[in-house]
Structures are given as C-alpha cells and as structure tokens.
C-alpha cells in the first residue's frame, strides 16, 4: 500500500534554510491530511540552477508523481521540467516561480504587487515626514526579489510620494557581502532613513550593521524576514517591523495543489479555482499563477509568538 502512495517532491532553492524547513512542516501537515501522500523534501545545497537540475533529474528517475519546486532560476529549469512533464510528472512551482512553459501552475506566496507595496509601506509607516530609503536585495539574479523590487518601484510615485528610493544594491544572500553593501549605503547616503531588505540574509546583515554603527532610531531596517531569525532586531529596535507570509501555509498549499493536479486530475487553466485545504481557495490568473495570502506583518506586539513557530 505504501508503494501506491503519491510521491510528491518538495524541491527548494537550497537546503539548510529556515524558511524552507518551515515550508516542509506545512508539506508534512498536508501529506497527513491527504493521507496517501509521501513528501520528498529535497534540494541542492548550493542555490544554483545547475545543482537543482541534478536534483530534479534524480526525481524524474525515481518516477515521482509530482514536483513542486521553488526555482533558483526561472528559465534555466524550464527544459528539465518540461522533460519531467513529458514523462507524466505533474510540475508546479511555488515561492520562486518558473517560466510558464516549465510548469502547470505557479503558487505565489502572495501577490507580487502586494509584496512590492508592503515592503515600501513597512518603511513608509515609520517615516511620516518621508525621506531616503534604499533596497538591499539578495542576488541580482533572484527572480522573486527582482519582481518585488519592480513592483515596489511602480507604486512609489503615486502612493508614497515622500519616499525617495536612492539605491538598490545586492548582497548575494551572503552575510559578508550584504554587510559591506549595507555599510556602503550608510556611508554614501548619510540621510538614509530606512534600509529595505526583501531577503532573510540581507535583512539580518543590515540590522546588525545598524546596531553596530549605533544608528538604532535613526535608520530603520525592514523587509522580509523570518520571525525566528529576526526577533533580536525587533527587540533591540533596529527594526520596527518586517513582513512575511506564512511559509508553513505555503508548503502546505504547494503539496495540496500538486496532489490535486496529480491525483484528481484537476486542470490548471486560467480562471480555474482550486482548493487548498485549510488555507482556502486560489484562482489562477492568465499565466496560471495564483497568490496565496497577503504578507503578514511582525512587530513588537507579535514577534514573540511567531518566532516560536517559524
């Protein structure tokens, strides 16, 4: 009976990342709920497309039923995922998407535009007078970060006219480089009021720099962060608030959707509405993408609680 179980691979950008470990918790929860699912939690250790392809190749060989991938590269994975689909494997992407031809559907953690707006809003909320802000991103090739930054830039002029985005720099999700870049920002822009880092490594590095340079209260660090990793900086005031979606729900939903497509033969087409168990329902847009939920904000009032969860 075990062999008949549906095998769904949850492929992440890289192993050893708290965010994805939390997603896996949700995936296991979905598997238990669905009953007939085995989750294979896997991914490369180096966050590169090449390494991820090797992982996917071995999943194809294992004849898994579905692959749910958070991609290191939106385009480079397309050929191998196409091959997977040709061999009858259901492929969806989640979190960080794959180009349309490489998957059946994509589950955004949240609406891209909304994330873009949120990261700016997190800074703007604590800057009633307005001022200079800068973005410290992950690697310059990260698909989702780039999309959010794009969206953020779009909403700036109309919604936040007093906020001035002075620079966008890349820390490559590397602590040392992110630290250098954050310091560079502080030196180059003495009037900087906030650093927005939509990546968990970058946001920690920036907050540590602000702490070290005694700029707490002068420069606010914000962005996307896992509460468990970031609690210290909410506590010490380097950051007023950060946001993130619930990675547990994200993993849960990814498995749910993959299962529905693979087993119930639901069709992923624009306009279709699919159920994702306890999280609710999503509707696919014309690129077969769906957004799960708006980002959730963490500040002094709730960080304690959530840092225990993920």
């Amino acid at each position, binding site marked *: 009976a075990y062999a008949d179980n549906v095998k769904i691979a949850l492929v992440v950008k*890289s*192993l*050893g*990342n*708290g965010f994805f*470990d939390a997603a896996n918790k949700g995936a296991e929860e979905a598997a238990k709920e669905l009953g007939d699912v085995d989750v294979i939690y896997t991914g490369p*250790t*180096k966050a590169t497309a090449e390494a991820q392809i090797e992982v996917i190749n071995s999943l194809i060989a294992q004849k898994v039923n579905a692959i749910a991938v958070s991609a290191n590269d939106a385009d480079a994975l397309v050929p191998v995922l196409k091959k997977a689909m040709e061999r009858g494997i259901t492929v969806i992407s989640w979190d960080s998407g794959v180009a349309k031809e490489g998957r059946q559907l994509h589950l955004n953690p949240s609406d891209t535009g909304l994330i873009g707006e949120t990261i700016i809003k997190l800074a703007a909320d604590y800057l009633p007078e307005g001022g200079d802000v800068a973005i410290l991103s992950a690697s*310059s090739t990260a698909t989702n970060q780039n999309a959010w930054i794009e969206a953020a830039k779009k909403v700036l002029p109309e919604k936040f006219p007093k906020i001035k985005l002075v620079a966008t*720099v*890349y820390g490559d*999700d*590397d*602590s*040392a*480089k992110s*630290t*250098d*870049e954050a*310091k*560079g*920002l502080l*030196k*180059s822009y003495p009037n900087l009021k906030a650093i927005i880092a939509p990546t968990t*490594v970058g946001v*920690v*590095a920036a*907050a*540590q720099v602000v702490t*070290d340079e005694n700029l707490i209260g002068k420069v606010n660090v914000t962005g996307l962060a896992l509460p*468990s*990793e*970031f*609690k*210290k*900086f909410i506590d010490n005031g380097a950051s007023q608030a950060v946001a993130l979606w619930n990675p547990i729900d994200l993993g849960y939903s990814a498995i749910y959707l993959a299962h529905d497509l693979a087993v119930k033969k639901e069709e992923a087409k624009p306009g279709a509405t699919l159920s994702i168990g306890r999280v609710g329902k999503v509707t696919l847009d014309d690129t077969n993408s769906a957004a799960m939920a708006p980002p959730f904000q963490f500040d002094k009032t709730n960080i304690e609680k959530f*840092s225990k969860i993920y």
Partner: protein
Amino acid sequence: MKSFLKYREIWLLAGIVVLIGLISTRFPGFADPSNLRQVFNDTSILMILALGQMVVILTRSIDLSMASNLCFTGMVVAMLNAAHPAIPIPVLIVVALAVGLVLGAINGFLVWRLNIPSIVVTLGTLTIYRGTTFVVSGGAWVNADQMSPDFINFQRVAFLGLPVLSWIAIIVIALFFLVMTRTAIGRSIYAIGVNPTASVYAGIDVGRTKFIVFCISGMIGGLAGYLWISRYVIASVEVANGYELNIIAACVIGGISIAGGIGSVGGAVLGALFLGIISNALPVINISPFWQMAISGSAIILAVVLNARGERRQGRIILRKAEAA
C-alpha cells in the same frame, strides 16, 4: 643592498595610498582616520586569514579548506553558545582554536604522513568540512537571537579607541611577525619554500614543519570562524562559501610567491587591506556592484604582473662585474 622584499611592500603601500586618494576624490570622507579605522576593522578577519594562508603558501603548499574550516568551526562555536550561553567567551575562543587546530591537523597529517599534495588534500577537505557542517547542524541556521549578547558583542567592545576585533588582528600580526622573523620554525618555513631538498639536508624535518604549518592555518581558520560568525551573526552552511579564493588573492596581491619561500607578514597584511579597501569603497563610490568582480580580478592580475616584474630583471651580469673589477 637593501632587502628586495621591503621594496615590494613599499610599492604595495604606495598603491594603497593612491587607491585611497582616488577614492577620496569621489567620496571625500574615505580618508578620514575614523573611516580608515573602520576599514581596518572590516578587513581584520581577512588579514588574519591571509596570514594563516601565507605560512602555508611559503612552504609551497596551499590550504583550500580554510573557508570551510571557518564555516565548520563557526557553526560549532555558535551551536555551543546557543546551547550553553553561560560558557564564557574566552573559553569559546579556545574551543574555536582547538576545533580549527584539529581540522588543520587532519590536512597536515595527510600531507605529512601520506605525502599527498596539499592542493589535493585540501580540495577534498574543502567539501568534507563544509559537508560536515551541514551534518552537524542538520542544515539549520544559528541566528542572532540564539546567540548570547556577549558572544556577539565581544569583538565590538572598544578598547583604546579600537574594537577588540582590530586588536585581535594587531596581536595576530605581531605574533606572526615575531614567529616568521625571529624563530627557528619561522625560518624553517621560509627555507622549505626556497629549497625543500636543501632543507632536508640542513636537518629540517620538512614533513613535520608542513604539518605545523597546516595546524597554524587551521587554528587561524578556527579563530576566524568565531570572529566571522559573531560579526555577521548568522551561522549557516553557506558561510564564507568560496572565500578561500579571496584569502589566496590577498596573499598573491601581497607578493607572496605561490612557488614558496618569498613573502612577508607585511605583504599579506597589505594584500588583505588592498582587497578590503576595494570591497569597502566600491559601494560608497557608486560603482555598480556588477563591476566589483571584474575590478578585483584585474587588481589580482596587475599585482601578479608587477610582482613578477620585480622578481625578474636579475641577470648574472658578468660584464658589469668585470667592469667594476
């Protein structure tokens, strides 16, 4: 005739001064003492690592596993701190040195006892040590919140106007200077690089000295592991990934000959400083981050070309000797 080495370091120093001057034209505050102090502090870890690598390179070996050692030791120390916040920091530093020493000793043992070329040994341990970090940590990170305040703040405490991190670097530099110029082991390290066969004939135990050298680089890697983790307040498998090449680049720019036997403490320090200044300055002078890689690549090539220039142009000069006579 003055030692040629000094000559080279003065050039490097001049290069650094010019570099700072150039940067200052675009970012006036860069040459301020307070900023330079900060650059020094920011470069401290690289300087320490470059010194560890230097002694290895001097013996015609190379240690590619330093960054992985750093990652492993950093993780061990961070996990220890997270689990037992009461352990005082000096003890943790000793632990870091000891763990690093063990990893270095493994490299050294393989080089010494099995006579495997160091580049092969450390190419292997490069992946093994980082992989083991993953196994030890189960892939989980240790983040700022799990580290004790002492753990994080130790290196940041100011003492006589400089953070402890800078002082550690200064102490390490002084120690290395003493060892390399004033002790038998230091001179043996040079001798081995200049001529390994002659060293055997001179009664130096080449294998054992190489073992010691790897122990030194291991300890340095371990020390840097603690400093790195407490500086960047995140311990993960990805820490300092690929940093081994930066360390070697610092040595190369500092005029340490990859063929062994030539190089000095001052060179390694200046080489690291040079790289540190570049990575510090690029963000502030608004050069697109995408240029950084190409610029440091060009700097390395330039440094090698210049070093090689200085190294050659030494003929036998029979004619001139004849004229002088």
